[in-house]
């Protein structure tokens, strides 16, 4: 195996296949040299990520090496080119003035996961960006309910919920079949270099998303996604909170110093005169903070978790956000074109 490539392209490729651009100490890196290019592969947390980029003077071959050593070596170099070569049980990277030789790891132990091939459906840039708009509502990895740890895509909607909040974006051209894509895979999809030409290939329990040089293959979350439409309260509005969205987002961010330590990260929203809202957060051992913004409410007061409300507002686009209270015992609803958001209030 042998190849000559641009060092900067090698670095970019490495960065793009690791979460947050950083390989962990135990990560393994697979390097495949083809006729006119190199493919770097990482496999962690049920995700296969690859990046392919051009190379010259190639001799075909594959190796598996420790990622961290390769990453640090190529990052700390400043030469233009990088030579990759395999000798017996060693893999060598060299730049002309320096070289590093690494013990290769067993290829047999590399997971037998490959990207799906065949016909693909195309997700346009809006669809991919909409995945990002609902990501805040995905349940954290610590949640015991697997079904909520991904984004449900299909049947005309992109939906995420952790059962305390929900974000749904209408995306009419999606197929009827609903798949649940794990949060981590979505993060990689959002990081694809060319969002305008994302291809999706599906097989039972598995999906591959690719764009340009990057591809990610993931297991899909199995199970039936709950009927999220039933969670939307129906009927007449019995109360509301209305504010300029940007102002609300900024105020909720500004509540950070106290809000982060407030019990349950609670913000109380109350009317202040007829044209303003008072947002208050109180941390028992620290103090309290108030923010005033333009807006109105018909309610005496209502409470929310600051991150839930902030992230919902951040991912909306309209100038004004109106939170509709339809049933005081159920979630508060907000809507804008092709978007529905739900957030459970905190009982005070």
């Amino acid at each position: 195996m042998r190849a000559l490539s641009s060092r900067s392209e090698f670095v970019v490729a490495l960065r793009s296949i690791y979460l947050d651009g950083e390989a962990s100490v135990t990560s393994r890196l697979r390097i495949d040299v083809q006729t006119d290019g190199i493919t770097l592969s990482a496999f962690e947390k049920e995700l296969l990520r690859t990046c392919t980029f051009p190379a010259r003077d190639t001799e075909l071959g594959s190796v598996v090496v420790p990622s961290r050593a390769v990453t640090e070596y190529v990052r700390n170099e400043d030469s233009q080119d990088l030579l990759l070569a395999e000798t017996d049980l060693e893999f060598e990277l060299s730049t002309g003035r320096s070289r590093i030789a690494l013990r290769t790891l067993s290829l047999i132990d590399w997971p037998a996961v490959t990207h799906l091939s065949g016909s693909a459906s195309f997700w346009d840039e809006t669809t991919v960006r909409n995945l990002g708009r609902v990501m805040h509502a995905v349940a954290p990895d610590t949640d015991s309910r697997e079904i909520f740890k991904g984004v449900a895509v299909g049947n005309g909607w992109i939906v995420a919920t952790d059962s305390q909040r929900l974000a749904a974006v209408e995306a009419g051209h999606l197929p009827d079949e609903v798949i649940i894509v794990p949060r981590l895979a979505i993060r990689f999809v959002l990081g694809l270099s060319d969002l305008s030409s994302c291809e999706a290939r599906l097989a039972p329990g598995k999906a591959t998303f690719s764009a340009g040089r990057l591809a990610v293959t993931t297991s899909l979350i199995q199970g039936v996604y709950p009927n999220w439409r039933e969670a939307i309260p129906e009927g007449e509005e019995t109360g509301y909170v209305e504010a300029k969205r940007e102002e609300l987002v900024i105020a909720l961010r500004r509540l950070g110093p106290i809000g982060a330590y407030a019990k349950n990260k609670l913000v109380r929203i109350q009317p202040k005169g007829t044209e303003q809202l008072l947002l208050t957060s109180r941390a028992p051992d620290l103090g309290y903070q108030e923010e005033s913004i333009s807006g109105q409410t018909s309610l005496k007061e209502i409470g929310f978790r600051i991150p839930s409300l902030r992230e919902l507002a951040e991912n909306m686009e309209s100038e004004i956000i109106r939170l509709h209270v339809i049933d005081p015992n159920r979630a508060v609803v907000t809507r804008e074109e092709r978007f529905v958001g739900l957030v459970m209030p905190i009982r005070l």
Partner: protein
Amino acid sequence: MLVLPDGTQLGKEFRLLDVYESYDGPRLILCQNTAGQLFLGLSVEETHEEHVWLYVAISEERRRQIENGAMDLRTVFVTPEDTFVYEVRSATTAGEISISLHRPDELQDVHLPVADERLPQLLVAQILEESLDTVARVATQRRRETVRLALRFPDVPSPEAPSRSLGQILSALQELVAAAAQAVMGEATVRGRLSPEVLLGSELRVVKTYAGSFGIELSAAQLAGLFGDSLASDALDAVARLLVAGSDADSLSSLFEELKPRVAAKYRYLIDSLFDAQAAVHFEWGSVVDGRGTVRDLSIDELRLIGTAISEVGPPLDTTYEVVGQLVALNSRTGYFELEDRTERRRISGRLDPSRFQEDQEYVVNAVYRALVRETVEVAGLTGEEKISRTLLSLELQN
């Protein structure tokens, strides 16, 4: 035949709320006029021509006393709150109603209930069941998990409850639910603070009390989630499984294995609190989640058996371990010690075991000792905080 005194000086649009006794038709009833005034009605005479009833206006408080058996029926009629008893005569054919007012001393003794006749307790239970919405329905309406506890305290007139015992039982129940919430979240710890998420999601609030035994209705402080799910629901499900296990040691053992020691300790605390108060309990849980909920009665005997079973299979509350570290302080007179654990770089302090340490024994401060310490988890507080007490069992100087 029952003819309510509708459209008379007693009021209009009468509603029949309860039939307490029946014999060939209602004989003792509770009804209410459109203004909300309650009347207890007693059938006293029935012929082919007419039916005679006595009606007495009663307050909500008196209704409670009647229904929980605290007041006998004769007293209701001979000491009417509104001075008078109404005699209502209705003709069986034409349906005409005539009403006359009587002072209690004008009533015929034969028409009055015998002295000390009360509503039977079984009937009281039925009334409770009927007058309260089912707990599941309440939970669904509120979108909050809801629990009803009916406690029967000995030597306390119904519907009263000793505040100390009641407080301890409620505190024990809350701590158990919080510990179960922590376990179902998959972050069970034996001791230490509970996370804000656990405290928020498991908090119960007393919503109301009701008559009967001493009845308390509690609901989760927070609403159920978008799909009816909630941490409180999962935690109460775990609690319900413990209650259903009863005194079956194998079932309890496997539940403790699953739910971890904190839950076992808190369950023991609840059972002990009930047993100490000699309070038999009726536990009813209604859930927002379809298919969830439970009803469980625990008698004093069952509480004792459960307590014994927990002692057999529950985790020990004491642990003993060795520490090697520098002696920071030791006062055999006050019984206090403090050591700095060499391995974990933390200070531990507590009391000396009085049976093992005498005032004339000498120890060297700052010297390194091998110590044997017993740690006891004490159940306390509503804050989610565990209290740990340590007892020093021995000290051996290290070279």
